[in-house]
């Protein structure tokens, strides 16, 4: 017992929600007898305004310096109680939350005695952890106001303009001599019912960035080296381009490196036959005055033959095993077919397609193209058109599935709608920024849905076709969104991390490197003398590193090994063989537990759950300890794949549990008693079923 620690335990009745099942006075009496507990209170509604101010009074009056609240669930009510404890003058990290409604009274309604015993155990576990809690604090890292935009296409320019508009500095780095990217080659940009000359768009944007006082542009530039992290980047440029010799001080970075057409080498004679071109090359022909005959006919440059028949083949090297839909090919092919028709109405244009991916208002272009006489032929997914050269003319043989017959179409110009890939520099950039990209060179965003323009690490954003092929509008929208994401820390002047972070004690470190290789956020850097150090503002506190470190050097504030161990020991203090020790992640698994509660799903009361932020936090040694202490079984529950609040924590957990099973078997424990489930926050039934199954298989019922 530590003399200086005074724990206050507040047990809530939740009206009859808890008190109707759990014998709360008994729990209160029990809590009074626990070591270091200086004060225990029963509240009818602990979250009511009156009860909250009573709690503050009690904290002051009884000089409490740790608080355990036993009530509903931390997922909804922890912020409220944290604030309250803070208002009472206590560091909010000194609060521990015990869930006796969702985990007890709502799910063991017909077994009031066992429920009461479970509530007591949970309170004991809470107090055991609370005694060891330490103060924590939010961590701030200063961020200044210089943003580097890599890539000067429309996405990058739009991003830079939005950053600069706030008075921040934006530096655009473009590797080519001109800004504008792909649009420099495109004729017109069409979107929904609108159309504009690409050159006008580029000119308008370039004028804006060139005249903006806060924007600096380095053309012909390339990056040599990037060092540091948010607020603190040093970016060195290669000497042979524009830009200063000394490193740039950069706070945040936006990646807007765009995309390139994949040359459809080997398809339909592309590369050898000049009559076979890509969409982008067709756009260039359409922009080229040389391609007009004086009579207004369309021709290849330097050719005297007019182009009479154009065949467009879509999905040339996409929608196959290696690659998906190119995303913009269908509307681009329709736009270009219309452009040819507008140029000279008697040019015959055929579009050969698999599916026409035209959404919302793009259909109106389709109708317009059909009206203008563009012919559409749908070919089967597994039977691409064939092209032969017949007496100097290209002939396209295609099977039309709508008419159920074969056609042969002559062609003077064969246009291939080809797939895209990221810029050639992506591999380099990806290494410099320590981010990932797909095989085709498209950067991987932090979260496919909720982090579409973010990278996992704070301070760098992603936009435009560097992420995946998309149209002009979407590229601009992403540019603005990316600007917003990096502007938040620049506006605030700092980024702040919750105090739940990793802390390394290097005494035993043998520099194996696991921690900095595995951290999903690049929050561990190797500093001088090659020692790992946590950049606390970047750490999200998942605890993956702490559980992986073979030397046990790393601890996580609020979820230290010592604290978790105290909970394990408290859970298994009595009748361990009747108990299931469970580790559940805060974000999903605990959500599933709560959902089982809200839905009043009844299951056997053997589980004693310990909350961790991520399932990756659970080290093998803690699982083993559970078995050493005689637990009937151990459960590790994380988010359902592929969801993980910490990107890949559940994957790390899965491999670790496999290793744990091997270790257990070696030590003579039954590995089948270690369970590992993935449970979504909506899946109350899954958690309840797991409890039932475990109870049966572990012979607890």
């Amino acid at each position, binding site marked *: 017992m530590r003399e200086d620690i005074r724990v206050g335990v507040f047990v809530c009745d*939740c*009206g*009859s*929600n808890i008190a109707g099942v759990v014998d709360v006075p008994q729990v209160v009496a029990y809590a009074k007898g626990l070591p270091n507990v200086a004060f225990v209170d029963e509240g009818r509604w602990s*979250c*009511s305004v009156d009860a909250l101010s009573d709690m503050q009074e009690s904290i002051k009056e009884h000089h409490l310096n740790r608080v355990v609240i036993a009530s509903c669930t931390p*997922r909804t009510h922890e*912020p409220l109680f944290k604030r309250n404890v803070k208002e009472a003058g206590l560091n909010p990290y000194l609060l521990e939350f015990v869930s006796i409604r969702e985990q007890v009274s709502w799910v063991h309604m017909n077994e009031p005695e066992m429920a009461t015993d479970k509530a007591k155990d949970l309170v004991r576990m809470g107090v055991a952890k609370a005694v060891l809690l330490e103060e924590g604090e939010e961590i701030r890292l200063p961020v200044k106001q210089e943003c580097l935009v890599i890539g000067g296409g429309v996405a990058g320019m739009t991003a830079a303009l939005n950053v600069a*508009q*706030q008075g921040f500095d934006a530096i655009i780095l473009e590797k080519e001599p001109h800004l504008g990217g792909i649009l420099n080659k495109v004729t017109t940009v069409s*979107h*929904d019912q*609108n159309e504009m000359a690409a050159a006008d*768009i580029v000119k*308008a944007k370039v004028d804006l960035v060139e005249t903006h006082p806060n924007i600096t542009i380095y053309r012909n530039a390339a990056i040599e080296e990037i060092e540091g992290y948010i607020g603190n980047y040093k970016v060195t440029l290669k000497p042979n381009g524009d830009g200063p010799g000394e490193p740039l001080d950069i706070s945040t970075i936006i990646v807007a490196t765009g995309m390139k057409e994949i040359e459809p080498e080997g398809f339909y004679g592309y590369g050898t036959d000049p009559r076979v071109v890509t969409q982008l090359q067709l756009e260039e022909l359409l922009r080229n005055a040389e391609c007009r005959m004086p009579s207004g006919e369309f021709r290849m440059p330097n050719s005297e033959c007019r182009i009479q028949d154009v065949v467009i083949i879509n999905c040339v090297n996409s*929608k196959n095993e290696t690659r*998906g*839909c190119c*995303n913009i090919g269908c509307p681009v092919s329709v736009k270009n077919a219309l452009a040819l028709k507008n140029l000279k109405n008697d040019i015959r244009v055929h579009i050969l397609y*698999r*599916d026409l*991916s035209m*959404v*919302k*208002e793009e*259909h109106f272009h389709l109708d317009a193209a059909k009206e203008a006489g563009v012919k559409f032929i749908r070919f089967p997914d597994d039977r691409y058109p064939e092209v032969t050269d017949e007496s100097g003319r290209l002939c396209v043989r295609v099977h039309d*599935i709508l008419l*159920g017959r074969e056609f042969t179409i002559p062609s003077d110009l064969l246009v291939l709608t080809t797939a895209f890939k990221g810029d050639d520099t992506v591999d380099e950039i990806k290494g410099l920024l320590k981010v990932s990209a797909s095989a085709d060179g*498209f950067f991987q965003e932090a979260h*496919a*849905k*909720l982090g*579409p*323009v973010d990278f996992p690490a704070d301070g760098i954003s992603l936009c435009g076709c560097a*992420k*995946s092929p998309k149209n002009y*509008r*979407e590229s601009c*929208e*992403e540019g*603005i*969104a990316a*600007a*917003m*994401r990096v502007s*938040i820390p620049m*506006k*605030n002047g700092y980024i702040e991390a919750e105090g739940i972070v990793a802390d390394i004690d290097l005494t035993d470190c043998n520099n194996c490197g696991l921690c900095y290789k595995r951290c999903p956020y690049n929050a561990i850097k190797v500093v001088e003398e090659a020692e790992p150090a946590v950049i606390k503002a970047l750490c999200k506190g998942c605890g993956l590193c702490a559980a992986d470190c073979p030397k046990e050097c790393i601890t996580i504030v609020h979820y230290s090994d010592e604290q978790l161990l105290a909970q394990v020991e408290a859970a298994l203090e009595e009748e361990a063989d009747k108990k299931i020790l469970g580790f559940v992640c805060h974000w*999903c698994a605990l*959500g599933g537990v709560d*959902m089982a509660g*809200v*839905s009043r799903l009844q299951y056997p009361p053997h589980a004693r759950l310990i909350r961790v932020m991520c399932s990756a936090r659970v080290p093998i040694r803690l699982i083993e300890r559970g078995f050493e202490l005689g637990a009937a079984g151990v459960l590790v529950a994380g*988010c*359902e794949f592929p*969801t993980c609040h910490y990107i890949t924590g559940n994957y790390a957990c899965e491999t670790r549990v496999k290793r744990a099973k091997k270790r257990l078997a070696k030590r003579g424990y039954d590995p089948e008693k270690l369970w590992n489930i993935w449970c979504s*926050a*909506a*899946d109350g*039934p899954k958690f309840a079923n797991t409890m039932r199954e475990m109870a049966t298989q572990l012979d607890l019922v």
Partner: protein
Amino acid sequence: MSESIMIIGAGVAGINCALNAADYGTKVYLVDDTPSIGGMMARLDKTFPTNDCSICIEAPQMYEVDNHPNIEILTNTEIRKVKKTDASFKVRLVKKAKFIDEEKCTACGACMEACPVAIPDEMDGKIGGKRKLIYMPFPQAVPNVAVVDPECRHGKMREDGACVGGCVVDCSQCRECPIALCVKACQKEGKDAVRLWQSNKNLNLEVKSIVVASGIMDAKPAEGLHGYGVHQNVITNMEFERLMNAGGPTEGHIIRPSDGKHVKKIAWYQCAGRGLADGVPYCSKVCCMVAAKQTIITKEHDPSVETLIYYNDLKAYGKGFWGFYEKAKENGVRYIKARPYDVFEDPETRNLTIRYEDVETGNLMKEEVELLVLSTGLIPSDRNKRLAKVLKIELDNLGFFKEEDPMMAPLETKAKGIYLCGGATGPIDIAESVVQAGAASMKAVLRIGD
């Protein structure tokens, strides 16, 4: 001049817009006219193209909104009047009564247990979902409080067995209620949070900019379309989504409405209603991927279920979407390019025989299935017309909000200071909504275009 902004609609777009702006340091009023924030995503099961569980990823954001010092949530609240001045908007809002003291309610559920009347749920009625007349919008609702059905409070549910109504005086006259079982149950719990006498409240705000994030709705098929509304085992893709959801009325059991039997053969009709006078006239973008998702999840529940998708053009337009479609095919989904003809029900088995033209062969084909899912598409919020009128901005011919200069000033409307994001702009998926939310938040905090 006001430094705050207002966001109308609290689906995933509104929520992300609010979080960005609030993190930036701007005060945000997040308004939704339903009792909880969350929008469409709160109802979905999994989300393509990665099959992340929808509520698992949205709920943490909802709690973040709830606890953000810069965000004020106004649910059950309608925008009534907006007056534009030079640099700001003066907004009159009405917070419709939930008949609950939101400060006191702890979502314990005692009232719901006491309420004698269960009616079919708006969202899940067709697949057997019921709710009481006092109810929680959904378990993770924010604010996490119960709501009383106004119909009950107005005495209109008496015939269905409701305990209140038919009094000499209107509820608004009383300050306590000796009749209502929910009021009594709540009092017994010591909370006394049910307030049948609560009235609507007017609110006035001044904000510098407004973001419209009023989202989309799932289209309901016309009565009789492919047997919808006639045959019980014809449902929409939204209804199927709820059927798969472990948090839905069937706890994720894929059982059919007519007899509660686990279904072994399911067909999807894509673009249901397209081309018909009362159908959705455009491609809604997401339905192909929604169908792929639904078949994948169905197979995860029970690999022996047979799944067929009748479709026209496949839209796999986004990152990772094609792989997702391939995955559905690998799982054994049969994709058939087809034109639907008609649907018959076997009066005995309640199975459905669908006749269609196989587009690749031109043959008329027949197939018997146990459940037919209609992919009906996304339509604009049915409150858009009113909202456009109040805000004095325009809708496009499809009923979505119109941008003044979509090429050079995306997401901006003809009224300076009013911006758009998410489903308010047209059919859209979650990731695109979040992108637009980021962009609109930037415009709103800076009041771009001024």
